[in-house]
């Protein structure tokens, strides 16, 4: 791995140079909300931020996406597929938890039956991650899942704010190509020098989750879900701000002769999510829906895809839940349960 540094002013120059050939995307603060969106110049970016409201999964799995359009011409119906990206993209400022979430989403969208538009976006996007500030926000808990918020793993380049400079870890070939766009702006560092600049590991309260899955799996029938679901309002915030949630709906907008089929985010917390036309709902009350969500994060997703857990500790759901359902408290409650009764 190449380790370099770049001054903060040069970083802007470098990003602007990237923006000449690629679509540059990064965190932008508008009306007090930080969101990832395309920018024309690095001046629009807000790199001094905790984390974005919506996770950058939206760049790969957008909230609304056209799958294809259809048009009736005489007897025939013509389908027109959505075009791939026009330009390569560079996402700057993404946090490690969100980088990690992409590797979970990759399992869903790239394995088994491959989702072409997700793949196109993933393949054609370079990630310039931004190491988390020390101390991190008090609500964050990524380290509980074994995630190191200062690690370049999964991204192409990692930037670490070290005062007036950024420490630059170039992790991949894609990253090297980006640096090569403005090689003159970077100062190569010796290992020793880089180590001196490297901030100390992040100190975060850590939960021991080794027994979480086993304990949770014994709680299928537990009364806990009933009580946990009481403050839940049944809105979709937790799932929409979650970087690993991937549920979606497919819907046509338009007439029978002219329109678009969209894919859009959907939420397992909505009461009609699994409602069948027959009127049967396998998850009829908030109890089943809340239980389903936590099982999916901590048991069924990991079991299906062979991953650790399907949560990256970004704390978005915890911060935004209007009813005050806190995922960390849920984990603590599960861990505090005595032994596993069979469910």
């Amino acid at each position, binding site marked *: 791995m190449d380790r370099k540094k770049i001054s903060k002013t040069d970083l802007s120059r470098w990003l602007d140079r990237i923006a000449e050939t690629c679509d540059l*995307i990064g965190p*932008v603060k*508008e009306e007090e909300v930080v*969101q*990832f*969106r*395309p920018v024309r110049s690095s001046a629009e970016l807000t790199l001094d931020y905790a984390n974005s409201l*919506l996770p950058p999964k*939206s*760049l790969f799995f*957008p*909230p*609304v996406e*056209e799958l294809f359009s259809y048009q009736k011409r005489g007897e025939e119906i013509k389908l027109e597929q959505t075009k791939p990206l026009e330009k390569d993209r560079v996402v700057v400022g993404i946090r490690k938890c969100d980088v990690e979430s992409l590797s979970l989403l990759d399992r869903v969208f790239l394995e088994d039956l491959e989702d072409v538009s997700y793949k196109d976006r993933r393949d054609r996007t370079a990630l310039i991650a931004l190491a988390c500030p020390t101390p991190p926000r008090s609500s964050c808990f990524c380290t509980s899942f074994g995630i190191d918020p200062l690690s370049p793993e999964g991204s192409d380049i990692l930037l670490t704010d070290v005062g007036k400079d950024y420490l630059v870890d170039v992790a991949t070939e894609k990253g090297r190509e980006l640096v090569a766009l403005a090689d003159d702006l970077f100062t190569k560092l010796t290992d020793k020098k880089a180590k001196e600049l490297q901030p100390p590991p992040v100190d975060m309260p850590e939960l021991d989750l080794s027994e979480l899955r086993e304990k949770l799996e014994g709680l299928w029938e537990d009364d806990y879900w009933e009580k946990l679901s009481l403050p839940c309002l049944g809105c979709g915030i937790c799932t929409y701000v979650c970087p690993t949630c991937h549920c979606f709906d497919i819907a046509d907008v338009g007439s029978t002769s002219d329109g*678009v089929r969209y894919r859009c985010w959907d939420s397992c917390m909505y009461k009609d999510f699994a409602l069948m036309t027959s009127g049967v709902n396998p998850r009829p009350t908030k109890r089943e829906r809340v239980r389903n969500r936590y099982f999916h994060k901590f048991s069924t997703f990991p079991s299906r895809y062979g991953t650790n857990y399907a949560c990256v500790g970004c704390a978005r759901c915890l911060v935004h839940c209007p009813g005050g359902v806190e995922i960390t408290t849920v984990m603590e409650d599960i861990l505090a349960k005595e032994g596993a009764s069979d469910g």
Partner: protein
Amino acid sequence: MVSGSDSLGNGFEPKILVFACNWCAYAGADLAGVSRLQMPPNCRVIRVMCSARVRPEFVVKALSKGLDGVLVLGCHPGDCHYSEGNYFTRRRGLLLRKLLQYVGIEPERFQVRWVSASEGVKFAETVEQVTEQIKALGPKRPRSGVLPTEPGDS
């Protein structure tokens, strides 16, 4: 349902939805027809049993989905076939008109008028007047359908 017009809005032919009460305006429309009164062809009439049948969401959805105007026609106050339906229409109309204006929809695009069964001429005049007003405003909204490329990008 794209409203046809050239780039300058010339020749713009608006699409207007008319809800007409069965007991008055619908008959008024009929009378206008048999009297061979000239009327612009921009209106699509939906017959309702009472102007109070027109729920506000009918109007909101019609306008948001690209119609250029909505006209609700009911019996004159006091003449409702069901005694008091149009009094409720009046309250809702007052309120909805203000709300639509507030979110940037011109008041001409949503109108309520009282037209009795014998007022064939008033029906024709109302339709013509409303059509002219909306023509002058131009299309409600060029059909969007186009998405922002990424969330938050407007």
